[in-house]
């Protein structure tokens, strides 16, 4: 294997890693705020991909134009999921930890069923857009344009999340994360912050979903694999840490690509999981976790 091929693999892995990181960022945000692991996270990604595909199919609009509308729609969906389900799951008196796991798991099954009902079970993919079937030559390393664009958009989204954390609202988020009971005393509406946190988490996944749809097939079950990687990314980076999600996402993308090309493609996830377990042995709270 030549150096160029190795570079090619590494760049591809890192770009995929940026997508993983963005999916994980949404999960991590929600977890950091309220200790809830969203087991329907992959299904939110799946819905964003279907939304992109369906609008593209119906109108021919380029997926890139759908970034903002789909992110907004997912924001509304996340907000609604919090108000309708999660707020209730957080207020139960018994088994709160398990109730939230199984409520979001039930939601995942429901959304998968709804997708199958509405769109059928077959694989769908976007065949024409500004990005498809183009590659860019970076000094001998050929990078497919959809992946490159997806990686760049993910980075931008990370920038936006960081920018938001510097605002008044971001400080309210941080305060709620630190002590969710005390914030009520300084006039922060905790319930509203939680709902907005869910909206932002879902919007992050929405952006990842639009970009992913430009080069990845969509099925009702597409979310499962990405969700699994997202859980690993979040646990590896440390629950609640945005920076941790970014670094862990990149690491996972890289390890996955290297395992697939150097060892055996069908074992690429074993490579990721092995790294994850190895890191957890030394840092039980992930690379950057403090919670």
């Amino acid at each position: 294997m030549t150096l160029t091929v190795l570079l090619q693999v590494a760049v591809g892995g890192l770009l995929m890693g940026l997508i993983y990181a963005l999916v994980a960022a949404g999960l991590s945000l929600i977890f950091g705020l309220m200790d809830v692991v969203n087991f329907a996270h992959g299904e939110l990604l799946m819905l964003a991909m279907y939304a992109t595909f369906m609008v593209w199919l119906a109108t021919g609009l380029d997926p890139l134009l759908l970034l903002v509308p789909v992110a907004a729609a997912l924001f509304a969906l996340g907000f609604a999921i919090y108000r309708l389900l999660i707020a209730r799951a957080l207020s139960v008196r018994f088994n709160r930890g398990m109730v939230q796991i199984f409520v979001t798991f039930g939601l995942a099954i429901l959304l998968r069923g709804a997708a199958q009902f509405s769109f059928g079970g077959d694989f769908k993919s976007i065949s024409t857009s500004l990005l498809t079937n183009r590659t860019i030559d970076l000094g001998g390393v050929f990078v497919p344009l959809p992946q490159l664009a997806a990686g760049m958009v993910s980075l931008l989204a990370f920038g936006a999340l960081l920018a938001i954390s510097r605002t008044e609202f971001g400080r309210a988020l941080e305060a709620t994360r630190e002590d969710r009971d005390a914030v009520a005393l300084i006039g922060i509406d905790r319930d509203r912050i939680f709902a907005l946190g869910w909206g932002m988490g879902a919007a992050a996944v929405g952006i990842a979903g639009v970009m992913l749809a430009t080069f990845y097939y969509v099925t009702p079950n597409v979310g499962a694999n990405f969700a699994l990687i997202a859980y690993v990314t979040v646990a590896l980076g440390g629950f609640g840490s945005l920076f941790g999600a970014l670094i862990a996402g990149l690491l996972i993308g890289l390890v996955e690509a290297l395992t697939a090309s150097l060892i055996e493609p069908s074992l690429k996830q074993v490579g990721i999981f092995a790294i994850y377990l190895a890191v957890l042995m030394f840092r039980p709270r992930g690379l950057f976790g403090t919670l």
Partner: protein
Amino acid sequence: METSITRRRRYELLIGGVLLAALALLPLPIHDVYTRNLIIITVLFAGLAQAWNILGGYCGQISLSHALYFGVGAYVSTLLLTRAGIPPTVGMFAGGALGGLMALLVGWPCFRLSGHYYAIATVVVGEIGYLLALNFDWIGGATGINIPYVRSVGDSWLWLQFRIDKLPYHYAALAFAAVAWLVAWLIEGSRWGFVWRAVKDDPVAARSLAVRIFPSKMAAAAISGALTGIGGAIYAQYVGYIDPDSVLYGQLSILIPLPAVLGGVGTLWGPLVGAAVLIPLSELTRSYLGGSGRGVDLMIYGGLIIVVALARPQGLASLIGVRVRAPAGADDAAAA
């Protein structure tokens, strides 16, 4: 003097015995194959959920890797049968032993983690097992293993094989569920049961009373994993074919605890009640609404899980008068 606790425990044993007798008679008037299969799967899942309950309910460790122990049990007994000619009634216990051993192997690193870190680590371990089995050709890889009908033996309890009659599998599943229930009953009354519940409710306080947290979790994991492995072996003999997608897949790790969680986690009757409600509902919606692949069955099933979890967080068993304690640290049960 007789305390109210010993009296209650004797009642529980009595009710369990009556229930066992009733369940033994239940399939006799039913000759329809579909309904009998439904009953067998329900009883099997009642046992599996009870097995999970020992680690997840009494000891409070939300393990999401029980598909691994189930799969290990199924594969070990099947491989002993196909490769070494050892009867499944023996292989079943080997499968159980390895299931328990596997639970210890998983527990060794994972019990150092807490809360969601633990839950996700167990998901990942289960997924690694699935991926390795998928790529391990000696155990059939993705094609799986067909369990042969040993002709020289014929229908036999020792070989747990019955060509036409499925009723014996009902008794095998029932015996398994009864043993799982009895183990849970014994644990509830034993010192271990109190120690595990202390580990679940407040690990810090438990440690201050000289409870050794890690060995307690490991003991619960070993028992839970061993029972789950035996369940896997019985399932393999019943369906006659196993592959990673039927005995090791990730979602199974959620389907096994589901009856326990919705029925009443950490209770004696919860897993039973949960399985009795959930498994028939999911099977019936699948066969009546899922045939066309339209996803309606999944929507109903998912919606049902949400509604039950939110409306009865203490579990369905509370509807029939099973008392569920709300421990002082109930909020943090997951974080323990």
